[in-house]
């Protein structure tokens, strides 16, 4: 069973509330959901929509075609009529005009009835969401009573939890005992900041919004130097500004973890949409040559795990860790029954100011931490940085999951992908004869990648960017060029059915 529901309306009309109510009920009712959020860079008006996908098995993507269309306004019908399946259902917001601000609640009720969810489940959810719920329940009932049940969903055993990539970063950071998150707002990274800020007193951490990303990254280094577990986060444009601080990290070796959530560039690009186009800058930003780690989780559970790993490794190797995500992973709402692996716990044991005399510098330094221009020390220190990277590689290859293999493991067809595309790929290949190699660590790369590609007869690269950045990285590290590429770069993520058709045509 898999259903795809498009819920559209103007910004401010409350499409997210409709989705939230129904998705919460469905998860409690035992179903898995995936919600894709498509919204414009404006506060009120325009056209926003969610695609809520429901299944009785784990899903991590949405489809283009809708079984149900919930339209809070007329524009939604116009825009999405083509996407509605032949016998699809339309639920019109117009019929609940009198509900005014509760239009969204009425529509949630209508949708619940269409799906065949008992009224009681709806009432429980409304009560848990609204302090003064009497009016809300009336609106929900009105919606509920207006519809016929079309899909008779039965209650299932599972109870998945809903999680976005942003929430997952916050959970991972909290699991690792984060002290400080210093940032400047930028979509789609800001939700991590908001999430951590919410309970900062309770969690004994500080979320500090500073004057710009240059300050954020340099402050983060100052705080980390002082002995705090520190993170900063931004999107591509802010990351560009942080470039100099990345380089300072390289020479000063003060631990630094950065959350980079991409959106389509160049420039301001398409700010509320998605792209996997910043792998290159994650790998290379910052002048000079110095070690770093780049990890790209593909769903919220992996994001929790990898955020903790990033913080752990930054401290252990006094290095730069980058958690690479994008709008699609950060803001889509996944539901899952899996539990994240145990967090690698750590304490700061290096010498810190206040207790010891510690000197870190943006200059090449001697053993006292003072500046040097010596050619021998310049070479020695450079070698030490490269040795550190080799140690990091060895440690990571031994201790952490750097790739995942999904699908038919014996297949001679191989999809190679990473990050937020992974969900759509996993869902697309369910009934196909292919395996999927998901790259989690982009730096260092797993040695397994070369072996897997060499074993396969037919290799297809799938990414949301125009130049195939992971493909280029693999070519650089292995000498293998992946000729077959499925690249999408219109700001929208892959739909699983779209990807399935494309892959079918290539295997």
């Amino acid at each position, binding site marked *: 069973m898999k259903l795809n529901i498009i819920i559209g309306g103007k910004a401010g009309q409350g499409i997210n509330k409709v989705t939230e109510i129904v998705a919460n009920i469905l998860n409690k009712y035992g179903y898995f959901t995936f919600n894709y959020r498509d919204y414009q860079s404006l506060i009120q008006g325009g056209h926003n929509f969610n695609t809520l996908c429901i299944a009785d098995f784990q899903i991590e993507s949405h489809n283009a075609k809708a079984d149900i269309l919930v339209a809070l306004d007329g524009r939604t019908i116009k825009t999405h009529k083509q996407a509605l399946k032949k016998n699809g259902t339309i639920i019109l917001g117009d019929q609940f005009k009198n509900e005014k601000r509760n239009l969204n609640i009425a529509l949630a009720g209508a949708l619940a009835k269409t799906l065949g969810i008992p009224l009681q489940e709806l009432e429980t959810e409304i009560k848990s969401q609204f302090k003064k719920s009497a009016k809300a329940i009336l609106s929900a009932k009105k919606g509920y009573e207006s519809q016929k049940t079309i899909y008779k969903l039965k209650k299932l055993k599972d109870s998945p939890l809903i999680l976005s990539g942003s929430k997952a970063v916050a959970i991972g950071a909290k699991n690792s005992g984060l002290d400080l998150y210093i940032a400047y707002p930028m979509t789609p990274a800001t939700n991590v900041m908001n999430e951590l800020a919410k309970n900062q007193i309770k969690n004994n951490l500080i979320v500090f919004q500073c004057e710009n990303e240059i300050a954020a990254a340099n402050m983060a280094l100052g*705080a980390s130097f002082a002995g705090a577990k520190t993170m900063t986060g931004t999107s591509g444009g802010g990351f560009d500004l942080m470039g100099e601080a990345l380089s300072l990290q390289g020479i000063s070796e003060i631990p630094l973890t950065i959350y980079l959530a991409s959106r389509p560039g160049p420039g301001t690009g398409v700010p509320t949409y998605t792209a996997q186009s910043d792998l290159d800058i994650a790998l290379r930003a910052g002048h000079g040559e110095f070690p770093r780690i780049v990890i790209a989780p593909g769903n919220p559970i992996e994001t929790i795990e990898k955020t903790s790993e990033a913080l752990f490794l930054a401290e252990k190797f006094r290095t730069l860790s980058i958690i690479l995500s994008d709008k699609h992973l950060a803001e889509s709402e996944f539901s899952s029954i899996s539990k994240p692996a145990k967090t690698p716990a750590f304490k700061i044991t290096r010498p810190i100011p*206040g207790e010891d005399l510690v000197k870190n510098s943006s200059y090449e330094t001697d053993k*006292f931490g003072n500046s040097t221009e010596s050619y021998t020390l310049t070479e020695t220190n450079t070698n030490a940085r490269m040795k550190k990277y080799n140690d990091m590689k060895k440690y990571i290859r031994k201790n952490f999951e750097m790739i995942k293999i999904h699908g038919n493991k014996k297949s001679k067809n191989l999809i190679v992908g990473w990050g937020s595309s992974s969900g759509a790929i996993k869902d697309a290949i369910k009934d196909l004869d292919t395996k999927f190699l998901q790259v989690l660590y982009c730096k260092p790369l797993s040695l397994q990648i070369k072996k897997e590609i060499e074993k396969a007869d037919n290799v297809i690269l799938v990414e949301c960017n125009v130049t195939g950045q992971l493909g280029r990285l693999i070519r650089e590290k292995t000498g293998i060029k992946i000729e077959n590429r499925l690249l999408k770069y219109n700001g929208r993520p892959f739909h699983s059915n779209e990807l399935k058709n494309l892959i079918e045509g290539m295997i």
Partner: protein
Amino acid sequence: MKNLSTQAENTWCPGCPNHMILESVKQTLTKLIESGKHKQTDFAITTDIGCHAKIFDYLNLSGIYCLHGRAIPTAIGMKLGNPNLKVLTFAGDGAAYAEGISHFIHAFKYNADMTLILHDNQSFSLTTGQPTPTSQQGYISKSAPLGVFDKPMNPIKLALASNATFIARTNARDIPHMVEIFTKAIAHKGFSFIEIIQDCLVFNINANNKDKQMYKIKDNTNKQTAEKLANEFDYNSKSGKIPLGIIYQSKEPTLEEKWPQLKTKLK
């Protein structure tokens, strides 16, 4: 107690006032450490990039030799990471007034309990004398052979407008005055900003020798008086007086007091 000096070779020009600033810092901190008020390890410094910043190598203190323009945010980060550190930031007029101007303005707003010691010689000297925001009109250098067209910025006025809680000015040739001002600045609860009027013996020598214009004022806490004092020196003309001393001091909640999470960590 460890000595405040290091083994590093001093590469400032002979006779550069930076030597006297270094001596004043050492005298100030030695007194604070010997009085038992602070341990040597309680201090952390950040330095920018430029001649002034070489002080990093000459002081046996914890710290970060920062990127150009970023000594202030890095220092504020230190305070966020450990509010009990006694943080001193050294920056030049190029560093803080050009590359790092946004941080300079915001530092007053955050009001972290730390001290900014700003070496103002009205020139980017380490990079061979290009003009800075406080260079006087007409200053001719390799990068500005036609002379500086613009009027200089008045950082004291900017600091006042940015709600600074401590603004002082001192003279790099006057060690006792520097020690007095540094001591008061470190004792101030909040962000203390000290501008040191300093000669460069090699570049922008026309801006040098302003001692005759300088005079000492009494510690001031009146904002209107402060504004008057700030206007006395425009960084441009050879006439006009240059007031030295505490131009303005007030009490406002500090960064460490405003954030409950930091307040609980304060010793």
